């Protein structure tokens, strides 16, 4: 009893953590589901068929491909633009720096429905109502991923000891060599983290995408449509794979840095 009281907060915290994983277990479980009926979403029987034929569901795989394409391109765009902006905000001084900080923060806090609908209003107003699709989705995704990239890279950059660059110059490195041999390697983990974050934000986005997609279907749009018609279990296969991949990357990174720290001892 005393153990419980002493560790109450920790136990509660762990319970909450478990709670966040409950739906994931269901997703993984359902990926092995053999549904009796397409419309009723419940576990009926075990099967490996979903995993053996992940693209059995019509149109699902093409939507995944579209999502991946958009994800990669928007990650590329947002990471490049965002990294440049982060360098500007941390290393340079200019008028309007604080307004820019505010502008970067706003997309992270704005409701998606407002961002999405205002973008739609822009496209329609500019006469692109008929061309909604891949490129409008891409534009929207780069827009809201930008802020997250800037914030991530900025904090990594600000935490960097700038005496290191002075030391590099003292040791005969030109400014260009200093950047590529000292600054960039040290900021890179932040850039990588920002890119991963950006990709997952893009892949998973629904509200903004839905408003600006026209006829194009991304994976979340596919799931939304399927929710009315009957969800194929392969959707859960995709979900499980996404989860596994992200866990591997993220926990792997954590274990890697632990391994490095253990080498210190």
């Amino acid at each position, binding site marked *: 009893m005393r153990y419980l009281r002493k560790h109450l*907060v920790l136990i509660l915290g762990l319970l909450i953590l478990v709670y966040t*994983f409950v739906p994931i277990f*269901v997703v993984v479980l359902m990926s092995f589901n053999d549904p009796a009926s397409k419309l009723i979403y*419940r576990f009926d029987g075990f099967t490996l068929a979903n995993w053996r034929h992940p693209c059995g569901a019509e149109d699902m795989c093409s939507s995944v491909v579209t999502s991946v394409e958009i994800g990669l391109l928007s990650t590329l765009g947002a990471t490049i633009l965002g990294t440049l902006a982060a360098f500007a905000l941390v290393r340079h001084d200019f008028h309007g720096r604080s307004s820019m900080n505010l502008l970067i923060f706003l*997309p992270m806090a704005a*409701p998606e429905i407002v961002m999405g609908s205002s973008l739609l209003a822009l496209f329609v107003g500019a006469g692109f109502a008929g061309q909604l699709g891949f490129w409008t989705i891409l534009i929207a995704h780069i827009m809201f991923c930008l802020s997250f990239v800037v914030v991530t890279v900025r904090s990594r950059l600000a935490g960097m*000891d700038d005496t290191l660059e002075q030391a590099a110059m003292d040791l005969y490195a030109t400014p260009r060599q200093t950047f590529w041999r000292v600054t960039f390697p040290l900021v890179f983990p932040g850039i990588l983290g920002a890119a991963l974050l950006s990709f997952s934000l893009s892949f998973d986005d629904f509200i903004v995408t839905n*408003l600006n997609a026209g006829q194009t279907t991304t994976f979340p749009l596919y799931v939304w449509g399927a929710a009315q018609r009957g969800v194929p279990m392969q959707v859960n296969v995709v979900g499980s794979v*996404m989860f596994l991949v992200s866990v591997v990357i993220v926990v792997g990174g*954590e274990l890697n840095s632990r391994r490095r720290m253990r080498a210190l001892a």
Partner: protein
Amino acid sequence: MAEMVRRRGRTGYLLLLPAALWLFVFFVVPFYSLVATSLFDPGGSDAKGYDMTYHVANYWTALKHYGKPESWTNLGPLLRSLWYGAIATGLCLVLGYVLAYAIAFKAGRWKNLMLVLVIAPFFTSFLIRTLSWKLILADDGFVVNTLQAVHLLGSDGRLLATPVAVVAGLTYNFLPFMVLPLFASIDKIDHRLIEAASDLYANPIRAFFKVTWPLSLPGVVSGTLLTFIPAVGDYINASLLGSPNQRMIGSVIQQQFTEAHNYPVAGALSVVMMTLIVAMVLFYVRRAGTEELL
């Protein structure tokens, strides 16, 4: 560490320009488009185009149909969204604070791993996760059966298609947005301050309210803002887990845009929603007193 000297000159502008331009064109300008759209003449359409007639009556139309509450139980989509958002944010605050506190103070060497575990589930598509909740909260599922057994729920009660499911879904989906800023704030608190408080005769509860809570306020403020604002506009949870009685304003706006193609009214609703949110946020931030969110 030597204080960093910022460089002056034009390079800063050049580096910033692409991102600033992108955000300006695709974030700032669209707001103007939205406001303009809300003032279009409702007589136009996609095909014909719209005339700008500063038709302020669009706002009255929007509010009349979707803003006016019918009764105490039927608040109408606009007010309902604010209400659900507020409750979900409150629940997130309680759960999130416990979790953030546990990780910051009680996790020891598992701190980083736990943080990572908080975020990990949210890399899976949240639509799929919400569908899972639909299964978990199903009428003949484990949860409902248990609640019925302990009489928390009537014998023919259900969770799906009720506000409970919607708010539960909102709380679940926005939990990380609350936990991360809270953690950042709580983690910075110097443990020695709490030790000093207990040295000065404060029991753990008093020490919490007098020391920990006030020092974590910046995190509380950013966390609640990052949770409340998106939660109000969300409609996935309401659509998947609720019934038409739980319809949220986001769903109305989306439907008016993509199905009814009633752009002026949809725009007006968006602007109204945004204005209400901003007003509530300003009021809240004023009262909480912290301006250093950014």
